């Protein structure tokens, strides 16, 4: 299968088996910022944006991305520097393996509910697990990002 999409604003195409998942297409083509954690759509490390909504790329068939507008952490942090700045400033990370997913979800929340309260932030971001931090600095990072919008 040849999958064609707009990836981080640029045309992208790749030859891949038809049962491929989007996370594998991205990672095998150098977009390793998208991480695979749990592999079952729970942890959030593989979150990417497809047509302005967040998607678990580990359980998203690459075929469904055909012709769509896909953004990964690499593209989003370039396009929206406030996103990167918020996580750097508030240190919303430790080991960093969940961080790209947290960053992409923060971007998604910025689209869905830019005025989110603390509890709405926690509820939305609950889909992105972190084992290191206890979530305080991540919540702060998201709040800082939303405030910049």
């Amino acid at each position, binding site marked *: 299968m040849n999958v064609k999409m707009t990836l981080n604003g640029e045309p992208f195409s790749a030859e891949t088996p038809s049962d491929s998942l989007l996370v594998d297409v991205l990672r095998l083509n150098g977009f390793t910022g998208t991480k695979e954690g749990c592999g079952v*759509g729970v942890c959030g490390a593989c979150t990417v944006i497809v047509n302005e909504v967040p998607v678990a790329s580990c359980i998203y068939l690459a075929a469904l991305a055909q012709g769509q507008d896909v953004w990964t952490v690499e593209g989003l942090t370039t396009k929206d520097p406030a996103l990167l700045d918020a996580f750097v400033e508030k240190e919303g990370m430790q080991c960093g393996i969940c961080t790209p997913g947290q960053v992409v979800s923060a971007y998604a929340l910025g689209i869905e509910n830019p005025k989110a309260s603390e509890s709405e932030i926690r509820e939305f971001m609950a889909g992105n697990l972190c084992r290191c931090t206890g979530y305080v600095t991540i919540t702060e990072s998201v709040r800082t990002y939303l405030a910049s919008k």
Partner: protein
Amino acid sequence: MLISSPTSVEGALEELGNENTLAVGGGTSIALMLKNRLIEPDRLVLLNKVPTLSGIDERTSATVRIGATSTLLELMHSPLVNAALPMLSFASSRVGNPRVRSVATIGGAIIHGDPRQDLPPVLLSLGATAHIVGPSGERDVPLSEFFLGFMESAAGEDELVTEVTVPRVAGQRTHYTRFTPGSEDDYPTVGVAIAMTLDSEGTVRDARIALGGVDSTAILATEAAALLVGHRPSDELIAAAGQSAAEGANPSDDQRGSESYKRAMVDVWTRRTISACLAG
């Protein structure tokens, strides 16, 4: 494995006529099953390019039509669903996480038929109907007859659920409880969805109580609901309904609770959810 992307229902049905073929809505459950080799289809039919399968509108003043590929995110934010079927918007907002809600569809939720999921009991209690189209024609199947067994539904492999219609009932009171005593981000130990109408005296005219997570499919607690109809429910009657619902449940042991605990929680949460409906 072949992939096809039809642009019409007719085209999709034609593709589904092939052997060992599956229709894909959001594909989250199918992707998981593919990964675990629980299924090895020869062909997937993607429905995301079929425009007539999407959209949410008022079929009549008494019915809301929800296209099968409507996502849970769309159900959360649809002004119509929020106004007419607030329990459905609420329940959609509780499913999984934002990534799942972005892509998972209402059609997928009922076809997949996982009894632990939120939408099956909610749609059951709302009296929803699935519209099924297949090679031998079209039919409407009430959800009370749709869930046949664990992950097994009335829609055949060569058929398609094109839409779900939900009656819009003036003055209907609804409440959905998902009881997650461990992590909030988990399937409910039990889910209780109730829709009822009261007359001006507070007498129950009509009630449907549906349970999730306590049988091989989402189920209706028909007898429990019948106890309420024609009465202004007293604490005793509510307790009797809770007990009836618990007796009718058929839960199994798992990490989210033992059989006996889930049964006891059906009792507690049926009572509490009835009370929440009565309180408005």
